[in-house]
């Protein structure tokens, strides 16, 4: 029986996949009821299951799929119109089929699943169709009930006689198509069934002749189509007597032709996929992932050791090991990536059913369904996502009347969006419903004792909205009625956070609600910032990191202020509450030079600065779980092994924030938002010239301050006093060497100097850099105020930290009189800027 078990297993896996597809197709079909393509796809799926179940002797499964198939064939041929009622019946059929499959999976048999009710329902649904169909459908209904098991068998019984006509095309088609699931099952069913029902077939023999012509024109069509025709007789047997116009057997033949062709291409595609993929146990992938993780760590150690050796062969081998291990790691990670569509595909059905149940009309729109993330994460997000979607339909989107009253279209829209954004997957569940009223949430929160009235007053509307994630808000029906949201939102949040993600909600009363999930791409490997604090290293997931600020002792002394004892830093004008990691951890800082390094973190819509001793690096870390003893501390989300083999704890930023922060005041929040917008527009506009200045440092210079790029030979640099100048287009240009100006000492003198010429008000200076790299948009740059002499700060441009040049300071270093008005010019005797020069330089 082993062989059969394998077949059953394959059948089950295949059918489950097909059913998921079916759910999607059926719901989509409601949107475009006339899509023959979709109908055909659905028909094929059901047909495949029917064929195989007949072969495997799952009679009830065959019975129900057969009735469904009848209905589908009529829908497809336009004899029946697709109504919501019919869709529901079909969906119920899918559910029943699923139940049967589950039972088969569990017990090997069809169990106690009752199909007669649904068979009757489908039959009934066929009857209440258009008037013309009424007389026709009654007899087929009874025929359908009794005949299903015999349909393929009967065909097979005829086969001995008609074999050349029927079987031959079937076989060649099957061969041509390869072993597509669709083709294989029916062909077998037909081949194996012959003996049994010969007599029933004989009884109905008179009905057969009209059918025979049909396959012939379709000879080059695939086997599937032949089977469709075989299935058709059951209808036609009875229908013939009632409605003659239905009888012409050529009719179906013609009808099927294009679909047959469609099925062929479809079949080939499917085979291509089936042949190039295999199913792999996820456990196996998990253990592979673990092994690769260890391999990478071992690799790191070997590479570090080999770096001290002189044996070139060994070095080369270790480099190769290095490369291969990285590629292997990447490859294994890819095997675990799946498109988010895997979990989304179930949602149209959820939305539809729930919509009907609530009497709401909801359209589901999906964007970015191909966005990939780790399988484990995908599983973990499934339930929270479904919950959010249900919430949106149930509470977010209003009833049609209410919507019309509010001047919105009766049909609500639910958006699902997914995209990759800076190493994370952002998933949004948005509706255009009633939104959430912060006032109501706040009032309820106070009433339930979740927060105090006092605390509420100090909260911004945005912060109040996040209250729906508090445990106190769940399970309370009263709150749900008023707020419209909140059942189990804390569970959603907990689930999302447990996989290192974050969730936030935004809502405009009357306009809708958006829930935004940020999920790491993969659980196993997370980009993180490593920092040092009291001699130990800690990792901070990049997901919460916004920017870094470094203050030298002098600046720190004035820039870090106190508000009622709480340290704050003015970050671009806003007060950023500071949390000292040493204080949170109960340690003593080892940094005594007065420098302050601030990691600006964001958690639950709030921003705070974490003061650490120093920033080490950003690196991809492999997250390891920590033992129960450490979980209970509630400050670490895990641990990781760094490149040098030491263990570093991963800080749980949310927990840190909760521990250290009190609620911010509303007004501060608002000013901060405004400032953020302003800063964003400011950065958006700027295009930057990137230049290297040695020691791997990169400097960005606003492009609008760059007049021209030139190359100057070294020997043309002359000295005037202690300054360097160069003759350029008949003028003398003062030179500033950016590497010296910014304290980076690059390589020895080059033969050719790369020069950026800047002109303003008739004066020019030449800025010497090591190399011109690129021109980039300053847009979306992460800025920070790591301040140094001659710099405005730093930003991340093109994945690298880049220093923003204080152009004014650089120019003044070359020409202290540069910004003086030309009339007052040449106050500096060392600078030969005769009055005639500016004019000629204007052309530069």
């Amino acid at each position: 029986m082993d062989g059969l078990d394998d077949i059953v297993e394959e059948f089950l896996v295949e059918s489950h996949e097909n059913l998921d597809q079916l759910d999607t197709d059926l719901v989509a079909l409601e949107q475009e009821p006339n899509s023959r393509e979709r109908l055909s796809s659905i028909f094929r799926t059901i047909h495949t299951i029917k064929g195989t179940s007949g072969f495997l002797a799952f009679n009830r499964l065959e019975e129900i799929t057969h009735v469904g198939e009848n209905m589908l064939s009529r829908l497809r041929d336009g004899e029946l119109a697709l109504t919501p009622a019919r869709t529901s019946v079909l969906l119920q059929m899918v559910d029943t089929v699923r139940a049967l499959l589950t039972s088969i999976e569990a017990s090997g048999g069809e169990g106690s699943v009752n199909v007669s009710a649904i068979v009757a329902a489908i039959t009934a649904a066929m009857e209440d169709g258009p008037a013309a169909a009424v007389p026709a459908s009654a007899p087929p209904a009874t025929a359908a009930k009794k005949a299903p098991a015999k349909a393929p068998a009967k065909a097979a019984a005829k086969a001995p006689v008609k074999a050349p006509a029927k079987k031959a095309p079937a076989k060649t088609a099957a061969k041509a198509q390869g072993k597509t699931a669709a083709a294989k099952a029916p062909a077998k069913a037909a081949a194996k069934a012959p003996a049994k029902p010969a007599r029933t077939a004989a009884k109905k023999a008179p009905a057969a002749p009209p059918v025979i012509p049909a396959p012939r024109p379709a000879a080059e069509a695939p086997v599937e189509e032949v089977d469709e025709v075989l299935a058709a007789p059951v209808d036609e047997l009875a229908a013939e007597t009632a409605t003659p116009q239905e009888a012409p057997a050529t009719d179906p033949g013609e009808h099927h032709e294009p679909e047959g062709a469609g099925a062929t291409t479809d079949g080939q595609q499917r085979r291509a996929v089936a042949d190039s993929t295999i199913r792999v146990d996820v456990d196996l992938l998990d253990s592979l992932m673990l092994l690769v993780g260890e391999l990478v760590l071992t690799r790191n150690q070997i590479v570090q050791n080999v770096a001290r050796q002189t044996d070139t062969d060994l070095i080369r081998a270790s480099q190769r090991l290095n490369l291969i291990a990285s590629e292997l790691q990447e490859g294994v990670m890819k095997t675990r990536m799946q498109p988010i569509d895997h979990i989304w595909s179930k949602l149209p059905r959820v939305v539809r059913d729930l919509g009907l149940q609530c009497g709401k009309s909801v359209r589901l729109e999906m964007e970015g369904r191909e966005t990939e993330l780790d399988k484990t994460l995908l599983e973990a997000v499934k339930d929270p996502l479904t919950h959010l979607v249900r919430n949106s339909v149930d509470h977010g989107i209003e009833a049609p009347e209410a919507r019309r009253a509010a001047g919105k279209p009766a049909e609500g829209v639910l958006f699902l969006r997914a995209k990759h954004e800076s190493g994370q997957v952002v998933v949004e569940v948005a509706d255009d419903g009633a939104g959430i009223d912060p006032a109501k949430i706040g009032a309820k929160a106070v009433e339930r004792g979740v927060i105090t009235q006092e605390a509420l007053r100090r909260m911004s509307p945005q912060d109040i909205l996040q209250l729906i994630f508090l445990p106190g808000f769940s399970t309370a029906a009263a709150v749900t009625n008023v707020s419209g949201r909140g059942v189990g939102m804390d569970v959603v949040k907990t689930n999302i956070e447990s996989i290192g993600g974050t969730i936030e909600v935004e809502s405009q009363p009357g306009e809708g609600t958006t829930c935004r999930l940020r999920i790491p791409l993969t659980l196993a490997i997370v980009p993180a910032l490593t920092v040092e604090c009291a001699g130990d290293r800690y990792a901070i997931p990049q997901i919460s990191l916004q920017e870094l600020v470094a203050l030298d002792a002098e600046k720190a002394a004035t820039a870090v202020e106190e508000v009622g004892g709480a340290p704050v830093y003015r970050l671009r004008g806003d007060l950023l509450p500071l949390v000292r990691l040493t204080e949170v951890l109960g340690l003593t800082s080892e940094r005594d030079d007065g420098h302050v390094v601030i990691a600006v973190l964001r958690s639950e819509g709030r921003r705070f600065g974490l003061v650490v001793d120093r920033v080490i690096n950003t690196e991809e870390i492999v997250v390891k779980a920590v033992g129960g003893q450490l979980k209970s501390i509630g400050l670490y989300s895990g641990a990781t092994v760094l490149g040098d083999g030491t263990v570093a704890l991963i800080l749980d930023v949310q927990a840190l924030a909760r521990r250290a922060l009190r609620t911010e005041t509303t007004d501060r929040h608002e000013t901060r938002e405004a400032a953020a917008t302003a800063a964003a527009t400011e950065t958006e506009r700027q295009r930057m010239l990137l230049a290297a200045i040695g020691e791997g440092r990169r400097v960005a210079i606003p492009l609008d301050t760059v007049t021209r790029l030139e190359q100057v030979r070294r020997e043309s640099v002359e000295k005037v006093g202690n300054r360097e100048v160069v003759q350029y287009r008949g003028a003398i240009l003062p030179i500033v060497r950016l590497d010296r100006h910014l304290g980076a000492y690059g390589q020895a003198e080059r033969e050719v100097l790369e020069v950026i010429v800047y002109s303003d008000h008739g004066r020019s200076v030449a800025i010497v850099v090591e190399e011109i790299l690129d021109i980039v948009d300053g847009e979306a740059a992460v800025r920070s105020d790591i301040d140094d002499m001659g710099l405005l700060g730093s930003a991340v441009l093109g994945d690298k930290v880049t220093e923003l040049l204080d152009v004014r300071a650089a120019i003044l270093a070359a020409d202290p009189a540069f910004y003086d008005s030309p009339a007052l010019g040449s106050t500096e005797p060392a600078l030969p800027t005769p009055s005639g020069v500016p004019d000629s330089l204007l052309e530069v």
Partner: protein
Amino acid sequence: MSVATDTRSSKDAPSATSGQLATFRLDGDLYGVEVEHVQEVLKSQGLTRVPLAPPAVAGLINLRGQVVTAIELRERLGRPPRPEGTDAVVIVVRLHGEAVSLLVDSIADVVDVDAKDFEAPPDTLDGQARELIRGAYKLDGKLLLALDVQKAVGA
């Protein structure tokens, strides 16, 4: 030294059992843990301290890429800290599939013990240690204290 994972719960542990104990020394005494629990024994390892953790958590060690919590058994048993300059030995035990390590002074032999030599801990044993010591096996010339691993790592 590495032994397959054990699933035996500690519920039946307090009773006297015969079998093999991996023994180690701690502050002059000889202790033993069931050999089935022991995954491996390592030399002293670099520890990463864990701020705010219970005092018995000495830190985290890197066990071939796996992060394992280290429990300082001296602290756990209420003994004085290990003298400066002496390195601890790490015994990695595996409980319910999770690896935890115990820091001890030095490792000794694997000893066959007989249930008839077993005796419950004396009444004079003080509170903290009493919880963790199932009892003593009377060996020739010395006592072997049987450690309840489950409780010992439950810091």
